[in-house]
């Protein structure tokens, strides 16, 4: 039974990822919470980076496990770009991002605009394709795709002008340590 509404609300990519991971891969919730400390652009830059270098005192395994959160974030970003005017958007985003960097301001979260049923179907297909490519079982891929659909439909709409702040930590912070997000470092 198709429960999706005719047209979804505008939602932030990170909210969808958070919701889907909580549903389908709760073991990755800590990973997502960690990713939420970064802006969308920073997250995407880190997820797209191949190889994180070998630390001399690392464990030494080069294995990469197929995690749901990174896969989903990349797919949703890809879908979001497809659904917007990529060329204009990219140019505008590029200069805006540079200006934000100079001013050390955090970028607003990426928003998926309200989707038609056809567009929701396209997103679902993209999720299924990416999951298959990552080697996830079909049933698991379907579960994730369904969860994405539900998240797009049910997630509370995100105001387009309000930036989403990173989730506040629930664990007590160490008083003698500087806040990890204060430095505003750049990706390597």
């Amino acid at each position, binding site marked *: 039974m198709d429960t999706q509404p005719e047209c979804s609300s505008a939602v932030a990519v990170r909210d969808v990822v958070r919701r889907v991971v909580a549903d389908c891969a709760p073991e990755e919730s*800590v990973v997502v919470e*960690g990713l939420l400390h970064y802006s969308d652009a*920073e997250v995407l830059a*880190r997820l797209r980076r191949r190889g994180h270098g070998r630390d001399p005192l*690392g464990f030494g395994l080069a294995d990469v*496990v*197929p995690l749901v959160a990174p896969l989903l974030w990349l797919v949703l970003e890809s879908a979001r770009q497809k659904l917007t005017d990529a060329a204009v958007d990219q140019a505008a985003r590029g200069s805006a991002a540079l200006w934000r960097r100079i001013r050390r301001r955090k970028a607003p979260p990426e928003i998926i605009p309200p989707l038609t049923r056809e567009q929701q179907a396209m997103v679902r297909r993209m999720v299924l394709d990416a999951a298959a490519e990552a080697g996830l079982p079909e049933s698991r891929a379907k579960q994730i795709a369904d969860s994405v659909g539900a998240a797009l439909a049910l997630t509370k709409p995100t105001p387009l002008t309000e930036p989403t702040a990173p989730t506040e930590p629930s*664990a007590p912070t160490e008083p003698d340590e500087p806040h990890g997000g204060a430095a505003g470092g750049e990706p390597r």
Partner: protein
Amino acid sequence: MTSVEPGRARLDERIVGAGTDSRFALLLLLIVAAGGYLLVPVVSALHPGDYRGCQLAAGADLHTGDTVAGATRLVGQALAFLPCVARHAPSPPLWQILAGPAVVVAVAAVATISLPLWKQRRGRCVRLSLVHGGAEVAARVEELAAGRVARMPELFMAPAAGGVNASVFGTNGRPRMLLTGGLVACRVKDPRTFDAVVLHELGHIANRDLTITHATIALWRTFLVLVVTPFLLWWSGLGVFGVVAGGNPALTAVSLRYLAVPVVIAVVVYLARADVLRSRELYADLTASRWGAPLEHVWAERASAGDRHPRRRANALLDQVRTHPRWEIRRAALDDPAPLFAVSPLPMFLSGSAAALMNYHLMGHISPHVTLLSDWLGQALAAVPAAVVAAATTTALWRSTVRAATLGRPAPLGVRAGLWLGLGLIAGSVISGQSTGYLWLPGRWWVLGLVAAVAVAFTCWTCQCARLAVTAWPGPSPRGPLALCLIAGWLILSAWCAWWNYYGAMYATGFWYDPAGLRWVVVNWFPGTGDVRPDTTAVMAPVIGVLRYAAYQPLTPVAAVAAWVTPFVLWAAGTVGRGPGRSWQRSRGDTGSDDAAADGAASRAWAAPALRQVTAPALLGAAIGAAGVAGVQAWLHTLHAAPAQRGGLYAFSYAIWSLAAIVAGAFAAALVAAASARFRLPSALIAAGIGALLGLGAATALISVDGCVEPLSVLNDTCSWRPAWRQLEGGNTFGLVAHITLLMAPVTAVAATALAALFRPVRRAVLGKNAAPARARSTCSPAGRRRGGAVLAAVGVPGVALATAAVLTVGDAEAQLMTKARSVTVEAQTAFRRVAGLPVLPVSREVRRRQVRAWYRLGGRYLLDHAIGTGRSMARLLREAGHGNRLEVTAGLMAGMRPLCRNMANVASWEPVYFEIPDPAAQTFWHRFGLAVQSAGPECVRAAEREDAVAFRISVAKIMIAAVMAVDASDRIKAIVDDPSDPVFRGVPVAPPQPRL
């Protein structure tokens, strides 16, 4: 919490120190030493000078001529060359030279402290405590760390990293752990993998790997930025120039070698660091495994994933550059940590090459201030690479030996390890240019074989010491014998490095002393006159020429004694103590039922024979030595030398042939011991050492009572106690005998062992397989009086030997602490020229012109102008005093001539200390002038003071003839320069620098 399982390793990998810290130290010192050395030319560029001018004035041209002969000319004229350089091309102050490595170390220290801050930057990771849900992950890590590491690491997460990985960074005092997103995600679904990875990282913290690893990285990066970059910028220009210039092989070789050094150091550092890190990974795995880490689970998953590596050769190569071993190796090491006990070729080679490079680079720090160098300072510099290479190789060889003993396997010989170590030392020496001078290859390449031979002897010695300790040491821990072996090995390598730096490398480049000069030294060694028949000078001269330099290195006596005292102490300890004590081997190893049988067989195979099996050959050697000395006395007695003819070569031959008898006895003792015992090298060493010591004592006694037995009287006709060291005091001859005796004991033992090893197959073939030596009786724990005697021997023999070495070392201390500034005198320079010559280099006409011009410019013109000017003044006075053809010598004339004679004598006194004129013809005139005026000038002054007209007339005539020689020399120089408008003929002449260093 993961339960702790019993250790699976058959042998605890911690039984002997890992030795990785010493290999890290080797890298750190290599980088620091190279930092200082490579910056010397850069710093020198800030102090431009006329170094080339001094070289040319000395008659050398290192960039176009015979470089060995050129260097000989510089050393042979050190009294002129060093002051010339000090005045015209001053080296950078020592503090500036030492500031280079100091700054590198300081910046590296700051970088080491800053590196963790960079690694934990927000762009790379987030602090786990700031992440929602991170507390659960942290709790599990804390649970795993509790009781296992001294301090809980701070936790970070790299959420975007999908790998199943973790790493530790920071310092041992403040560790940090970084978990990847993939690992954090698998904590719930695959907790065993999570535990295995985290426990492995905690193993790194427990093993204190953090500070040293990251300090090495920081130092390397600092070295690249602060040293290599400015160095390459500076030298690349010269290197390109050298290549483009072509036809100038010396310049090209020097330039390209300088450019190659940073590249070679980079390769050595990279490979050595990767090798050490691989072993640290295995240690961390084993530590984690001991804590119950389910590492097998991780490896099993990889095996089921079909991760095979069919390209074995490629893998073998890649294994050398990886910082982590392949998982197959890691899995296998959990069952049997053999890789941690193996003596691999690559680490040996790298240790050797790093030590050789470091050795040369340390010497390079002091070379701009060679006048500050003393024998002890050179020895101290050589002791640094010796320490690190001794620590690195000794630990590895001990581990290998202990493992073989515990598992009942054949003891490692150390030959292969020694060959690789030797090859590394050779490679480092050739690459640095120490043994090649300014050329591509050594002049005498076969000398490098001696380096390999010494390296093999050292590793074999180390293995045998370890074997003795395993067999006989009664203590509860191997630390004591290992420390003893480390100190002795350090002393041996220090003495070797010092000799190599001064003489071995010089000989390899192609230089050695003139045979006729060495013969002159032997003939004139002992004061007085005397002769022997037959004349053995031709035999003594080259042998003494080689041995005296090796024997007189500051640490040689104590190192030579340590070479045989160390195995003696280890061996004797088994006799004195409670027997073969291998409890420390078993205390941490796993002993199964199958091991029990192997243990019995191993004990039999490893048991050392009774110590008297080496003391008997030693006594035989001492007897041979004593008989030989008596034979020498009988021979010299037959010459019936008169009392006035008992000095010179007569007395020297007495000492040297007595020495030969002692050494022959030691060699015979070593041969007998090496042929009959199972522990060949230690047996030969102990037998030769004790035999030589007793032989020296017997010789001392026989010489001290010389004259008491008429047929053996050599120096005396009456019987009295005259200490040998007093009778042979001249030229420190007795000291020479004692020094060489101590040195030759281990040398003959190594030679005898090599001979025994070579003839072993022949002996077997001739006598059959049953010709093996009878099984030696094992060491036992004697009781009562025998035990007391053993204790006395175990303490007394090393005590006497070390006391002898100490007396010799202290006796030489004053001379060996003397700097070159004090030891380079006119006499020393003359002696050097006599044994090494002062060759005139065959150079082109243009180079000769430049050499002569430089000589003239830097002081020659000043001397010649003064000689000629003074001669003219004297001629004018003489003309004024003359009546026709007759010279009337009056008091007024003598008073007027007296200051001129003194002035002339002053000028002539420069002739032996200033450079020789590079043109032989001009030099002949100049030298004749010098010789004549050095005698006639003072005669003239004395005659004028005494108003002795006859003597005055004769001396003035000599001076005037000599003045003509000065004019001839000057004319010859002007003809060679061949350009009257040359600036060198104008202006005020430059006075030569004072010959005070």
